[in-house]
């Protein structure tokens, strides 16, 4: 529904009630972490994420602990802590955990590696991606667009801006088509059923993702000196960020300001 303030408030209330046992508490922590992350309160989100992992470790369930590490990697990613994200996602992917959205985790790891400056290893992770199991929690209809964007980032990291823009444009077109479709799919419901708990920061929102790829494309266009096109992409990315109340790509938006208001 997108009411993250209310979701966070209810999760906090549930946590303070102290009823339901350790398993339920871990699920509520996942919900609270997701809502806090989505609202841009990354310190709080990471605190809930760490508490969740700590609880899951105490439960001694390796599959759920791997999911907790994926959550923590995603929360760190949203907070812009790329090295932390790499560390947690590496940990999540280190075993053969059936319930983990492995394809999504592998893509997110590749992007965190690019953002941390390790383009070579990011390329290696992309090479592993096609052989990963894909489940409903990976939100499979969105994976092609996500893969395109990460391929674009790798290309940009390798200095091939033309290839990068081709990937970004493919991804943007894909997100637009997905947004225009009225399907019976509900990513939140599918992820909830598949994981058996809220999807936390792993949830993919179409308009947020479109804004993200437009921001990346704008940055690449600006590097190529195509200021007019960069400005168009940047304006749409900013509008999408405003409409979805998403501040998760704060760093990119800051660079977009330079594109929007050139000296």
């Amino acid at each position: 529904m997108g009411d993250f303030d209310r979701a966070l408030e209810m999760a906090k209330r549930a946590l303070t009630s102290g009823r339901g046992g350790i398993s339920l508490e871990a699920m509520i922590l996942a919900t609270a972490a997701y809502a806090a992350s989505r609202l841009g309160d990354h310190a709080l989100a990471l605190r809930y994420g760490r508490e969740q992992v700590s609880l899951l470790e105490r439960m001694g369930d390796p599959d759920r602990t791997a999911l907790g590490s994926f959550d923590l990697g995603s929360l760190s990613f949203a907070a812009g802590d790329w090295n932390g994200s790499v560390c947690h996602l590496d940990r999540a992917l280190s075993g053969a955990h059936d319930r983990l959205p492995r394809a999504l985790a592998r893509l997110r790891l590749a992007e965190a590696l690019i953002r941390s400056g390790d383009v070579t290893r990011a390329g290696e992770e992309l090479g592993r991606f096609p052989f990963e199991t894909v489940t409903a929690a990976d939100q499979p209809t969105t994976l092609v667009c996500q893969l395109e964007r990460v391929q674009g980032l790798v290309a940009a990291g390798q200095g091939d801006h033309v290839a990068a823009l081709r990937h970004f444009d493919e991804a943007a077109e894909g997100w637009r088509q997905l947004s225009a479709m009225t399907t019976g799919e509900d990513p939140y419901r599918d992820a909830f059923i598949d994981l058996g708990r809220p999807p936390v920061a792993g949830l993919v929102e179409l308009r947020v993702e479109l804004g993200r790829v437009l921001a990346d494309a704008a940055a690449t266009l600006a590097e190529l000196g195509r200021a007019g096109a960069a400005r168009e992409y940047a304006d749409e990315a900013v509008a999408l960020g405003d409409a979805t109340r998403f501040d998760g790509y704060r760093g990119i938006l800051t660079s977009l300001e330079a594109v929007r208001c050139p000296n």
Partner: protein
Amino acid sequence: MPELNASILCLAQADKVWKLLHDPRRFPDWWAGVARVEASADGHVARYMAEWPDFEYPTRVETSADGGRIVISCLISDIAHEWRLEPAPEGCRVRARVVIPDDESHRAAALSDELDASLSRLAEVAEREP
């Protein structure tokens, strides 16, 4: 139920083949006989064959947790195409399995030709992708 199995070694990187398999918009580029594809309102995919351009074949595209397969099933005939990628030093190996319901077994020879043509085309298109 009758089954067909085939595979091909593709010299392209696996991610290029993966995208062609997982993006229904790209089916007409490699799937023999598919003229166009549309997303249906209910989340399924509608395939239109070159032979019957106005007839919709409702199709379900599913991923399977069992070994990373993608299963593309015709909802009229229940014929299911399963595709799987395996790493190979030169690129990747694409494995395909077609499960044919008994009622449709008379189409096995035609489906075998379609499968061979589609696999070759898939590898060719992937190898040409920039």
